[in-house]
């Protein structure tokens, strides 16, 4: 019972802050609502017995990616946003489309049964950080190495794109 109340709290805050995030006029407000959303998603991960991922969510998403967004929003001029229109001219159609798709997915989910509905908890307490590391370095070694190459490409690409052209 207490789990369900906690879940409903997290879900409500996540949905409300997501809606506020896509509707705010000032991008900085959007970034702050995104921060709230990431914190509550980390709470959901704790509820799902994935404490390591909750920490990763807070450190990488809230601590690194979002701060990068905040830096770039503050570097560029966002004052013009206050006067201009927020959404493009199709937004009522897009919103109706979104409601339609969400209703369809919710209808499908409510009519189907899931095998894990008994609600077992993970056998290993503490989300099995050791098991996670072992799986990451043995079974998923090749995707792990590819992810490191992707990070390297992202690093070099960001530096190459954003640097000013050097005069000869």
């Amino acid at each position, binding site marked *: 019972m207490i789990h369900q109340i906690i879940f409903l709290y997290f879900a409500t805050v996540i*949905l409300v802050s997501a809606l506020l995030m896509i509707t705010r006029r000032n991008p900085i407000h959007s970034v702050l609502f995104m921060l709230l959303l990431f914190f509550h*998603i980390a709470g959901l991960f704790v509820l799902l*017995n994935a404490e390591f991922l909750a920490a990763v969510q807070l450190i990488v998403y809230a601590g690194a990616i979002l701060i990068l967004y905040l830096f770039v929003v503050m570097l560029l001029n966002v004052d013009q946003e206050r006067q201009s229109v927020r959404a493009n001219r199709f937004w009522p159609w897009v919103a109706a489309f979104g409601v339609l798709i969400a209703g369809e997915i*919710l209808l499908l989910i409510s009519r189907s049964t*899931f095998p894990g509905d008994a609600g077992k908890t993970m056998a290993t307490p503490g989300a099995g950080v050791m098991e996670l590391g072992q799986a990451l370095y043995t079974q998923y070694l090749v995707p792990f190495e590819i992810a490191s190459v992707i990070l390297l490409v992202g690093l070099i690409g960001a530096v190459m*794109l954003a640097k000013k052209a050097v005069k000869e």
Partner: protein
Amino acid sequence: MIPLSWYIMLSAALFTIGVVGVLSRRNIFIILMSIELMLNAANINLVAFSHYLQSLTGQIFTIFVITVAAAEAAVALAIIILLSRNRGSVYADEFNILKG
């Protein structure tokens, strides 16, 4: 205990909000953050299934999703800086230089 379908419903709703944000907003920052929103919805799904199926694969894939999201955010923000330096705008509907 919480049924698995609650997590999937939450993730579906979050994903739909992300889609609406990508399709309707003009500001590139909000569009990119909506993409992050969709990635987070997928993460919730993966972790929920990993919990209910007693398998760590979902958590491992969540780690990969977070890695790719970090790389994507870095490159995309560099592209935004370049765009606003060259075109003087951060609005997606003003980048119509390829339009015939």
